[in-house]
């Protein structure tokens, strides 16, 4: 193997390690989901100057968790021995709940948050999603408020088991 090929292989190896480290950072507001589960982590590169470049995308433009993600990624990479880190916020393509994997949805349900119902598409002015209660599985639920504990969640209530719960909004 030529020296250049070997060098490239090493860089790719480093990149993968850096990705795995960054991917473990969890959402402070939904601690069962990592930024990889969420689709917030978009790319990790090793730049020519050796700096680790991480691209993240916000779920909502005003999402206060972005600052925490940035700090946590820097901390985790530093702990893993990486030097300088550059974190870029990318806006395009716009984040959508469609990026949540089946596994991530399952984790949300286990945690007591109803995962987004259906595909994100342009919403009608009126009319609600059909949301399943994450505790008892009933579809007999009602919206309490469009806005819940964080920007990404709405507050719902189950009419069968009477539990209130968070619903991860479909956007």
């Amino acid at each position, binding site marked *: 193997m030529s020296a250049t090929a070997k060098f490239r292989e090493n860089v790719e190896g480093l990149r993968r390690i850096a990705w795995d480290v960054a991917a473990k950072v969890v959402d402070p507001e939904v601690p069962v989901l990592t930024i990889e589960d969420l689709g917030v982590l978009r790319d990790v590169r090793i730049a020519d100057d050796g700096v680790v470049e991480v691209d993240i995308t916000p779920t909502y*433009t005003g*999402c206060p968790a972005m600052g925490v993600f940035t700090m946590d990624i820097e901390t985790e990479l530093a702990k893993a021995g990486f030097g300088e880190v550059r974190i870029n916020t990318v*806006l*395009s393509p*716009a984040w959508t709940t469609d990026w949540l994997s089946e596994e991530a949805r399952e984790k949300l349900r286990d945690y007591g948050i109803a995962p987004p119902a259906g595909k994100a598409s342009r919403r009608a002015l*009126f009319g609600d999603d059909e949301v399943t209660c994450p505790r008892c599985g009933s579809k007999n639920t009602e919206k309490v*408020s*469009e*806005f819940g504990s964080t920007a990404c969640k709405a507050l719902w209530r189950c009419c069968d088991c009477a539990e209130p719960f968070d619903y991860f*909004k479909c956007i």
Partner: protein
Amino acid sequence: MKDQLFAYVLRLADDAAILGQRLGEWCGHAPTLEEDIGLANIGLDYIGQARALYTYAGEIEGKGRDEDQLCFLRHEREFSNCLLVEQPNGDFAETIAREFFFAAFMLPFWTRLKASRDETLAAIAAKAEKEAAYHLRHSAEWVIRLGDGTGESHERMQDAVEALWIYTGELFEVDDTLATLIADGIAVDPEPIRTEWRETVARVLSEATLAIPEEGYAQTGGRSGIHTEHFGHLLSEMQYMQRAYPGLKW
């Protein structure tokens, strides 16, 4: 061209920042806990949009001004937000009417801006569109609930609609800056939105059993820095921290 783009991004940023500030004033004062959270959440969406837009405006300007400097260290006459967003919260009905008129414009606006030749604006628009859909729905539901509610709530909602109506015409105003950028495929021409806006407003107000005000005089001036008397008071509160502690960072 660069100057016009800077001015355009700045007015979008100012609209979002000022409305975000107004909604933030409700924090801890809203009529119910759900609404307190709701209004703060909507305000946060606007502040998020403003941050992305101010940051971009700073890059276009190229003088090293960041989001904080643009938002907190400009004077009243340098702000180019529309007059609607700076209007005081009033009672809950006025806050809802302001939100409804604005969101009914912004939703079709962002949808169109997604096709802008400016990639950054198109990217911000794609995110903001999803948020605007929620803002419109939230405010439209309240317009109906209050308009078609009790005698008292109906009267207050009607008063709010009439009080703010005069400021809605400015949303469709086209000045030279805007005309140039529309021709370049960067800015959105507000004129075609007018029909959609009127339809949304008419549909919601009629379902709310409210009278639709007649077309009439439109108060403008915000885009060129001529604001209503409420604006200075808003700025003095919003900018207090950066003025008192220059360069303060969270």
